[in-house]
């Protein structure tokens, strides 16, 4: 977690309003609160994970107004008024799994599951923009996310499978 090294004697708090997974949420946060920490600790949405806090692993990826961002490199105050989708918001209203979620399970694209929320968000945006990616586009599309467990082979497979499932449903 980040600190600027100076004591923050009673830090000023900022009131922010975020629309998270379609629900309007309000929080009071210090200026330095990372979006990842705000989601996890203020809003209790612990599905977004933190693997490095320096913007490399991609575990903390969420969708900001639909686009993937590293929530560990984003201050919560800077996204006041914006829409955020986290892994908790990928399923349908009745809890039905999204094609990307289903494909990940079907293809054994996760082991410990720690990187998975970041991949799911990344891939959701990837397939929205490119519903039928080539092998190279898939590998390229997930190349900003680290996974230490799976060796990526089944993740690549899952992205193709998700595209297929989405095609079937369209």
């Amino acid at each position: 977690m980040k600190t600027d090294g100076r004591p923050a004697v009673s830090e000023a708090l900022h009131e922010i309003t975020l629309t998270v997974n379609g629900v309007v949420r309000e929080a009071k946060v210090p200026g330095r609160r990372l979006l990842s920490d705000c989601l996890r600790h203020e809003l209790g949405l612990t599905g977004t994970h933190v693997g490095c806090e320096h913007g490399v692993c991609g575990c903390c990826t969420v969708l900001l107004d639909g686009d993937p961002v590293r929530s560990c490199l984003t201050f919560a105050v800077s996204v006041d008024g914006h829409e955020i989708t986290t892994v908790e918001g990928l399923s349908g209203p009745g809890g039905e799994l999204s094609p990307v979620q289903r494909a990940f399970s079907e293809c054994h694209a996760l082991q410990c599951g720690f990187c998975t929320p970041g991949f799911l968000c990344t891939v959701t945006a990837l397939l929205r923009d490119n519903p039928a990616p080539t092998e190279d586009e898939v590998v390229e599309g997930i190349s900003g996310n680290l996974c230490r467990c799976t060796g990526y082979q089944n993740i690549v497979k899952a992205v193709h499978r998700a595209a297929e499932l989405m095609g079937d449903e369209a």
Partner: protein
Amino acid sequence: MTTKLFGERVQRREDLRLITGQGRYVDDLGRDALAAAFVRSPHAHARIRDIDVSAAVDVDGLVAIYTWEDLPERVRDPLPLLIPHPALTHGRTAYPLARDIVRHVGEPVVMVVARDRYLAEDAAALIEVDYEFLKPVVGIEEAAQGAHLVHEDVPGNLGAHLVQEVPSASGAGAREAIEAAPHTLAFRLDFERSASMPLEGRGVYARWDPDDRSLRVYSSTQTSTSVRMAVAAKLGLPLPSVEVIAPDVGGGFGVKIVHPWPEEVLVPWAAMLLGREVKWTEDRREHFISSAHERGQVQHVRVGFDGEGRILGLDVTILHDHGAYTPYGIIVPIITATQLLGPYRIGAYRVEFSSIYTNTVQVTPYRGAGRPQGVFCMERTMDRIAAHLGLDRADVRAANFIQPGDFPYDQGLIFQDGRPLIYDSGDYPESLRMIKELIGWDGFAALKAEAAAEGRTIGIGLGCYVEGTGVGPYEGGHVQVTSDGRVHVSTGLTSQGQGHETVFAQIAATELGVPLDRVSVVTGDTRRFGYAVGTFASRAAVMSGNAIALACRKVRDKALRIAAEALEADPRDLEIEDGMVRVAGNPGASIALATVAVLSNPLRYAFDEEAKRATQFSGAASMDRPPVAEGEEPGLEGRDYYSPVRSTFASGMHAAIVETDPDTAEIKILRYAVVHDCGRLINPMIVEGQIHGGVAQGVGGALYERMVYDAHGQLLNASFMDFLMPYATEVPFIETAHLETPSPLNPLGIKGAGEAGVIPVSAVIAAAIEDAEGITIDRMPISPSELHELRGRATS
């Protein structure tokens, strides 16, 4: 047994919570807990002169600051040396907070507790520690010279020294055999450090209940039972008052088997003292500089062989860098020294290692645990022999193989479990045949010539390994069928993504004849199962899998006894299918397992409709014997343990084709093939997943990952920006084939699969690059700039 789930590609039951964000990792728990942060040493070797906390005490939200001086008896003692060994004559472990001396960058010095982590770090940043610098000891060979010492009382920085020697059949020692051999070679090999690097770091969260004086600890650990015992001992609490739970764990790969970490002692201690929940979550830099690394070794090899490449004598001397402390003993170099032999029958073998202190992060097992280095040594040796004799590299290996008829095969050494290194089963010639076919070994020369004609440089490499898996001493399983027909399985070892909930459920469902969805599995929770060792050494499936199968068999026998009485049948005529106990060949005569569970527990009180059957006036009981017969217990449950006489030995062979760029020296893996033999497969999908992940880590270790220490003992690349772990763009497609040679040692015939993927990768990639370039490769990892430099040297 008709419910055939063992061996199927069953989808994982862990997935649903993990893909919906409902997993529970340590940092997801305890939202209101106080947060701990640590002041860690910025110096590799220094004496602490003074710690000044005065500037920190005004920080908003600060709760407590602790130094070593503040710790009570036992808590302040050095952490335990987990695996003592007679050869580890100078074992040393760290204090939970540094006392007087720090011995590596990252060693914890002060603990801060505050309202949240931001504030705890604010306070930590304001604490001034005054250090007097001592000479840092960095680099294995420098350390081995002993000019400066890591521990004042450890001369030569030598923690352990061990020689193992296996004479030839005629009684000749290795050195003698080498002298007498028609051909000899001598060379040096280097292997650099890497680390497990799970994406979730370590973490501890403790809850003290002041009313009943009990402690609950959640830890991201590979062994909750042993953490529990360590915490109870350190805090002086009765064991039954301490519970430790490993919740969802975001990868382990070895580093989380080490325990108790300083934080695992200090966080619960602070929670008890403060009467508040306290949590600590490791950040990435802390993980780099304060947990553990592995791999670093220098090896000197002498080998003597005959004209067919058969090894007559092998003499290996290993310098092993174990960092600043030895909490995990000398397991890593022992494994290197013993598993180096791989699938081969060696004439005479001598291995000697010195395990050396340096002012760097401690070295403890990382997936493969010493084997990648050992296999690198042996496989590089095989390739050198082949090159020397002008023979095919696969043929030289085949000439040295232990044959299928030779099992059990005694290598004459003592393995990491203190037991003889006896291979139980395997089929190495078949494995070689399969890998050659899979990669196209025999047709490669033509391919290479074709590529050369196009100005491309490609090469092929091969690597073989044998892996001792499923080490003891034991694991246990508990299986309970409740009156709703559900089956509750628990085992004490922990999970870090291996899919244990799925494979153990497959085993239980198969053994008990119930549908998979009726089985639930709990691991790593001492509230459910208190006796266990932990998850490491590719042992979970072998150890807990068999224990659960044995526990299920007890339950099944009991179910059949009770059902036989109810159905007035002979238990031997009964079978269980789909949760129903049936008389074979008489579908009408059946009783649900749920009902058997009801009958197994004679009741006084009917708490629901079903329970009426087991009450005293139901007419079900025989009047001639007590309701619970002698030797029986109420309830349809069973507990059993599996404790093997020794490890079971999995094996495999990998092959790769690489291309090197003539200009940039970029190294690209074109194809990667794996033949893997882990005995009977419980779930091939999961085994393949383990292989993929292992190979990816192997690729990282072969081409990208290293721990770059400078002469001052600073780790220069302690972030994901600088420590290069492979992304999807770096890992090749992995082609996999399975061979199943059952283990004769355990009831299920299985062998471990967790680590295998990583083991031979550096050896294979080195061989392939060597084949492509015609330049000897004797150190790994290798980067394009290093290859470029080697090219320069080869032509100059």
